[in-house]
């Protein structure tokens, strides 16, 4: 009799312990990613972006963890690498940008750099989609310099695109400023937008320079080679 109660107690006790153990894996500490249960195939040997292998609790040794941490998975391409494009019409976009980030480069771009993308309604529309994601926060929906970052964040206001300062800014300078930024308050957007996207958004900026009209008429497309 008493033997049975004892084994009963052991069974109950071990069940209680299991519940507690399981519950402790379920989190609670907001800083802890918890314990991985049976982590087979959770972490591949191939390097995955953003995984801090130094943090992986299943790395084989502490030295390995440290050495892996010193080799982040996000790498820069080899200097001088040119991206490959399977679309020959767009291959030109992958050529290096020849104008340096100097006042002279800016002036030279203004004179000789031309948008290889035609000024058409469709392209302006595509440019608008990019503009609303990447520029509207500061420049405002209509390019008046009244975006929420300016209004709510006390950010230095950019001049209006259709105002005296920027109305006649040539497309080469627009592109140059998007690529490298301008002075302190206009940042470089080359890391977020590729060349094609920068040219599309340039067309939308020109559309706003005209006060939201296609006015200047379709501009003939120029071959992108060499840009």
């Amino acid at each position: 009799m008493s033997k049975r109660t004892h084994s009963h107690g052991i069974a109950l006790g071990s069940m209680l312990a299991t519940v507690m153990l399981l519950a402790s894996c379920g989190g609670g500490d907001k800083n802890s990613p918890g314990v991985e249960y049976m982590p087979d195939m959770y972490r591949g040997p191939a390097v995955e972006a953003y995984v801090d292998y130094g943090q992986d609790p299943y790395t084989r040794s502490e030295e390995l963890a440290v050495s892996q941490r010193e080799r982040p998975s996000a790498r820069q391409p080899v200097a001088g690498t040119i991206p490959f494009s399977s679309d020959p019409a767009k291959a030109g976009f992958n050529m290096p940008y020849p104008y340096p980030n100097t006042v002279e480069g800016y002036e030279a771009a203004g004179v000789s750099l031309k948008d290889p993308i035609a000024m058409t309604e469709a392209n302006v529309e595509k440019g608008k989609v990019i503009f609303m994601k990447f520029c509207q926060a500061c420049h405002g929906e209509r390019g008046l310099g009244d975006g929420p970052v300016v209004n709510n964040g006390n950010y230095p206001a950019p001049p209006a695109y259709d105002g005296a300062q920027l109305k006649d800014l040539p497309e080469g300078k627009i592109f140059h400023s998007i690529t490298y930024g301008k002075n302190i308050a206009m940042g470089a957007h080359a890391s977020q937008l590729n060349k094609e996207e920068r040219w599309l958004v340039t067309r939308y900026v020109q559309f706003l320079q005209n006060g939201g009209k296609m006015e200047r008429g379709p501009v003939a497309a120029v071959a992108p080679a060499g840009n």
Partner: protein
Amino acid sequence: MPLLARITERSPGLVHAILALFLLFGTTALQAQPADAALYASGEKIFKGNCGACHKPDVKLVGPALKGIKAKWEGKGDIYAWVKNSQVYLKTGNPMATAIWEEYKPTPMTPIALSNEEIDAALYYVDNYAPAVTAKKEVVVEPVAANDNNWLWLVIVALLFLVVGLSLAGVKRDLRNSVLEAEGKAPVPDLPRMQRISNWVGDHKVIVGLGSLFLTVWLMMLAWDAAWVIGVYGGDEVPHYKPEQPILFNHTLHAGKVDQGNLAINCQYCHSGAEKSKHAGIPSANVCMNCHKAVDTGRNTGKTEIAKIYAATGWDPGKMAFTGKEQPIRWIKVHNLPDLAFFSHAQHIAVGKMECQECHGPIDVQMDVAEQWSPLTMGWCIQCHAQKEVKMAGNGYYDEVMARLNGDENLGHAELKKYLEDGKITVKELGGWECSKCHY
């Protein structure tokens, strides 16, 4: 009792109101009122529209701080000519203009077509500028989430009942013994406790049997529920994984709604990979610097957190230049799908045309610190794929599939038509439940 003390005692609210009133007037009095409010307002507009990108009244930005600049130029140079076209004015060889240019070159000041009156208005604004007194919002300190351990309390309460029950049983036995003693009968023998319990158990088999069955089932249910959420750090049932980040980056402030005073930056401004790649991507510090070169103070944390971005990028805010000493920011990864499953943002954002909030929750409304909103389990993926309709129309990705579904019988498979019967095409119907789409 003095009157004031009595009032304080009776109605503390009144005193607070009076104090608040004093404070209110106090702050308005602090804020210098310009003599000519209309000129100030028009000057503010001109300044912000034409000069604000490069100058601030009180601190250096691209160009120098401009407070008191008119007095500085008085009698030493023609400030109007300078503002209208500084590069042309430099050719006059004015020594002060040359000195400023030497300090700031090669950044020239853009030629600005303004009248003398407009320049005067702008400079009037600058000279009378007083920074707006903004209420400093308290840093919301997240209360440490109470550990969801209700069942532990149940166990403790049950144990308490057990102890009380045992001692009551002891009292009852003593009473019985004294009754037996009074009746002149032999008392109940004082057996060891374990023996007594097992005797009791022997006498009450049904109760004990049912009780332990109930307890066993209950514990098994707990274990079953707990097993479902092992390794799950989001969703409704468990506290969300919400690690402290090296910089107190605030999604609500940066990406939140305009009408709540937030900056409403599009998610893709920072997570620009979302449409192009498997990963939405964590922005590199240069993306932060697109704005933070010009913003060194935040409304909640002041300069401390933004200074960490400067340390990471090697930016010297005094000199407004990079020093070249960089130090990566080690953000803690929040979402972490195991390698055995493939997930692509581009598929869901560019093709599926989904909103980030469908999976990441109200990150722009209520998350000062990013957290894992969804459970990220296979069940979660599958469930959505079973219900979610794919936006096929005008989706270049599915032109061919649509042509086949809608085309004549010869072109497509007649069998495919059955997918169109309910008028919608779910992800599952396109293969969103094929193991190999996610595991390979």
